[in-house]
């Protein structure tokens, strides 16, 4: 919800609650309640960072918000950050995962020694490509209705519109990179995510990976 008063976003360093400026504390409180009720899993125990823009809230308002979030939603506020200007580039929010694995075994990162397979064409609806031994690199699109699965990473040098599952053997450090990331579903190891319906292409390459708060996050791909 880009236009809402508050927005919960998953970034690489964890969950952020972004609050628009020029609002009363009651408006903010109501908006937080709406935003959290939209979530499909409780955020119990998570720690969040609150991003504010000038003119910021009063000290006592911040304290009130901190205690309110703790007692109502059991959310711990890590810190209040006051941004001087628009944060750029805005990473795309990923809805929280449908389930959480608390004790995941993370095999050592073996990217360099692993084989990878190149698919020099577009994968169309109904077609699948599986490569449990390593990473998949696709010189084309993965269309809606198509599925790609890899033991390692998945790199799509076109549009990813179908389903992709990286780290299918459990490697949590696996990533999915696409020039145009508009998938039906993304899966990394046992984490599943889908892009909100109606999400349009951002027009730049993006990377999906598992972030700190056990959710798949999607952000602009600049370098690895």
């Amino acid at each position, binding site marked *: 919800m880009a236009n809402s008063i508050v927005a919960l976003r998953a970034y690489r360093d964890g969950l952020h609650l972004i609050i628009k400026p020029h609002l009363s504390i009651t408006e903010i409180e109501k908006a937080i309640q709406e935003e959290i009720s939209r979530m499909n899993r409780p955020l119990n125990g998570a720690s969040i960072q609150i991003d504010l823009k000038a003119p910021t809230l009063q000290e006592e308002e911040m304290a009130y918000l901190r205690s309110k979030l703790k007692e109502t939603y059991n959310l711990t506020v890590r810190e209040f950050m006051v941004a001087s200007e628009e944060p750029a580039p805005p990473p795309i929010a990923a809805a929280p995962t449908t389930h959480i694995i608390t004790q995941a075994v993370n095999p050592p990162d073996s990217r360099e020694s692993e084989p990878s397979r190149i698919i020099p064409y577009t994968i*169309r609806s109904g077609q699948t490509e599986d490569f449990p031994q390593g990473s998949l690199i696709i010189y084309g699109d993965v269309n809606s209705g198509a599925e790609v699965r890899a033991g390692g990473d998945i790199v799509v040098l076109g549009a990813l519109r179908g389903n992709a599952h990286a780290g299918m053997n459990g490697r949590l450090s696996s990533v999915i990179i696409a020039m145009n990331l508009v998938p039906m579903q993304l899966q990394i190891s046992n984490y599943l995510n889908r892009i909100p319906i109606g999400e349009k292409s951002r027009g730049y390459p993006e990377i999906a990976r598992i972030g700190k708060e056990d959710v798949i996050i999607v952000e602009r791909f600049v370098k690895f």
Partner: protein
Amino acid sequence: MGRVIVVTSGKGGVGKTTSTANLGTALALLGKTVVVVDADVGLRNLDIVMGLESRIVYTSMDVIDKQCELSKALVRDRRVDGLTLLAASQKNNKDDIQPAQMKAICDKLRSTHDFVLVDSPAGIERGFSNASAGADEAIVVTTPDVSAIRDADRIIGLLQHARIEPINLVLNRFSPELVGNGSMMDQADVMDILNIDLLGIVPEDTGVITSTNRGIPLVYEETSAGAQAYMRIARRLTGQQIPIPDLEQKGLFTSILNWFTRKS
């Protein structure tokens, strides 16, 4: 040797049969010898759209069962020279024909015709494999909606797997108004997903309904936009270079809006 072209789509109701009838007629009007083959065994329609249903005596099933000669089963369209129809049996179903038998029929037909257009049934099962068995090229018909596009994408994958090429696209029932107000996928979006050559765009034309009911292919209605589109496609099939007109007459406001919101 003539060309055997399968007209297919995956999804039903997008205009395969209408396109086959109109392209067949249009090619005949351009002086080619054409046979349109209905491969939709058990659910035949092409004869109705062509207005030839009352004249069918034998079908491809009778040819396969050696009840009659292939040439006797071809129904001649009296409105234009060089156009014939090979009907499908309505009594049988798709499993009663083998792909090899269809291929044999297509191979025979291509020796006596410039174009053999095979109207494929919807679906990706036996009916589709029968229809595409004898084809060396394909025309994929789709409408600009997501479900038709996904099915077209699936069919293109299967055609490529069967090494049928070229595969050309006909974008049917295209509505510039709906594209203009943002409720229909535009040409660029469709081409971006399907990534095959565009043979032509047929605008949404209600004349298709009356033409189907009367059994007179739209191409005889020279003033209709749909007829002109099919004539252009037929000319392109014969190798003529005809540019695809820009049907997306965008208003000034949308153009400006698109300028700001366009994807890079």
